């Protein structure tokens, strides 16, 4: 073993030669994994295996990177560059014989959940989970009310959950936020807590939030006319008949992430006079400038819509907030959307983060997006 070849974070363990099992256990117990020093991030696996790999979703890097075995110590490691403020989600692939399993990193307690389970999370230096995403006992909680509405457009019953802000009053008029993949935003992006906190901080106004869920997501969210009709002609009129909403386009916002962002934008394009605000996170805005899209699967059906919109951009909202992770494959598509929206006369705020295509990235951008689209009364209210 040539200690100098090891990552700096592991060298102390081998300073006196190969460590005994107790020293390894002690090192593992005392350390926080992955080992992050500056921009260097060292992942560690401890145990028997034939091969260990890092599986991640960082666009630009190989999706699978092999760990190096340290002879005689049952230790494996992989060193990656991890720029400051980064946040990456990953799993380990552990191979024993013919069996390869994907597991969460047992040495790293940090997890991010998503509809498919959970991933381990590595944080670059300087990343902090925003405190406004965490429950705050001072924030008055809003309420959630679930209803099912028959949708003639979608030819199914649609589940809808309505968030009403704390101290909701029928004598007041509220703006409306319509969220695609609403339950996933609640479950994986702490949307309820974020709304409670931002309203408490007066950074956004009290608002009514309609959380919608798709049936066949990849069909309904891919520029699907019945979906747009459901939102614009069924949901909004029903909400405005039932809740005290201002009814002004400037006070109606469509929000979504990934394919949900496509659903939001395509609905606004089909109903350009209805929605004054758009919050689009990591939109799957695939397009081609020449030839066919290299992308396959449901995103292919989005290409025609985005190509047409790029060809003839139209002002479909006053303001649009667009965000994307730099480690996403969709970064080019989202960067390209910004001048397209601006060229049509829309006011656009665009934000990038060193993060991937995941719910906590979308959670972390909510303050920036919501406060820009709906500035709250923080300058005027002192309670």
């Amino acid at each position, binding site marked *: 073993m040539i200690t100098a070849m090891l990552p700096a974070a592991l060298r102390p363990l081998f300073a006196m030669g190969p460590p005994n099992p107790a020293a390894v256990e002690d090192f593992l117990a005392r350390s926080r994994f992955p080992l992050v020093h500056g921009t260097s991030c060292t992942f560690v696996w401890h145990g028997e295996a034939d091969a260990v790999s890092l599986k991640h979703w960082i666009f630009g890097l190989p999706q699978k990177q092999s760990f190096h075995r340290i002879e005689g110590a049952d230790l494996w490691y992989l060193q990656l560059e991890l720029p400051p403020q980064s946040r990456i989600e990953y799993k380990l692939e552990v191979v024993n014989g013919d069996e390869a399993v994907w597991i969460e990193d047992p040495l790293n307690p940090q997890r991010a959940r998503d509809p498919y389970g959970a991933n381990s999370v590595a944080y670059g230096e300087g990343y902090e989970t925003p405190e406004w995403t965490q429950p705050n006992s001072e924030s008055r909680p809003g309420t959630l009310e679930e209803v099912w509405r028959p949708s003639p457009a979608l030819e199914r019953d649609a589940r809808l959950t309505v968030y009403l802000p704390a101290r909701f*009053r029928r004598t007041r008029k509220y703006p409306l936020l319509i969220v695609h993949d609403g339950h996933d935003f609640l479950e994986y992006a702490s949307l309820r807590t974020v709304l409670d906190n931002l309203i408490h901080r007066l*950074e956004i106004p009290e608002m009514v939030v309609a959380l919608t869920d798709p049936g066949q997501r990849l069909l309904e969210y891919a520029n699907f006319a019945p979906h747009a009709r459901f939102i614009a002609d069924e949901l909004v009129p029903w909400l405005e008949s039932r809740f005290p909403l201002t009814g002004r386009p400037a006070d109606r916002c469509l929000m979504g992430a990934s394919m949900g962002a496509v659903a939001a934008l395509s609905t606004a394009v089909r109903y350009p006079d209805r929605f004054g605000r758009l919050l689009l996170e990591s939109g799957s805005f695939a397009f081609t400038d020449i030839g066919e899209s290299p992308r396959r699967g449901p995103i292919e059906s989005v290409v025609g819509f985005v190509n047409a919109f790029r060809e003839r951009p139209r002002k479909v909202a006053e303001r649009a907030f667009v965000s994307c992770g730099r480690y996403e494959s969709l970064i080019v598509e989202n960067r390209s959307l910004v001048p397209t929206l601006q060229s049509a006369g829309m006011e656009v705020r665009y934000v990038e983060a060193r993060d991937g295509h995941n719910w906590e990235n979308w959670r972390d951008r909510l303050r920036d997006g919501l*406060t820009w689209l709906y500035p709250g009364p923080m300058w*005027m*209210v*002192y*309670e």
Partner: protein
Amino acid sequence: MKAPARIVALLGPQRFHPTLRDVMTSLGMQGRVAAITAGWQEREREDQDLRDHLDERTVNLELYARGERVAQRDPELAAAHHARQDRVRRLQELYRQRLAFALDACAVLARAPGADADLDHERRAAREAVRALDAAHLQRLREIHAEFESRMKPAEREAVIHERTEIARLMDSTDAVAIAGGHVAVLLNRLRQFDIAGLLGGRAVFAWSAGAMAIAEHVVLFYDLTPHGSSWPEVLDEGLGVVKGVVPLPHARRRLNLDDRVRVSLMASRFEPAMCAALEDGAALVVRPDGWSAGEGARRLSQAGAVEPLGVA
């Protein structure tokens, strides 16, 4: 701080640490209290916590509802009021744009290394430019309000007289006035509309949050943590001037970056000789005709950029 003709207590926020009753008791006040909760707007009458806290000794003056009634009964006055407010809002936006550059200049100079005479001169000049901008903004607002008063004569209009007479009658049975927080512009408008300052007489005044801001000479808005746009404090308008020489800063720790000595220093020097008073939970700054005292939770922003205990004068 100039001594008022009555006791005025500026309190910290009351939601989590209500101290009003204790402060009143310490000042020997046991009588009825006129409550002003107009800053809560349509929630004005949701004052059960306050009533409980003061053992049902309160009489809510319902200034917000009265203002709404005046608007209904006197649409001409309401239209003129809205037109004035639109003008004031636009003026505020224009002032804010100028202010951002002027305060950015102050901050750049304040952070510049060195302490020679030329640099000090430029720093002072930059600060004076901000003070002049604040003063000019206030003067424009004064003119707009004076023109409104002279043209509409709101105090002579029947709908206003009716409500004000009723307010005066309610206040007759009270020994003190408690002014809660909320939307400071709405609160200030209602206090002005019914000339509450003129009805106070010798009554003690207890005010917190937006209430404390509205009864000062000048209302200063502040939120350093704003996610977008300028984050520099700005002057909204003249306040009632019930207490002079102090700029109340409720929830200062939550709203201001008090660790930034340049910002703290700028704030303190911009409004001097008025004292920038940070009023956190539990704070009480009691101003009597013979001096003032401050308890825990009240701090002052110093021109050196520190946040210091207030002490006694």
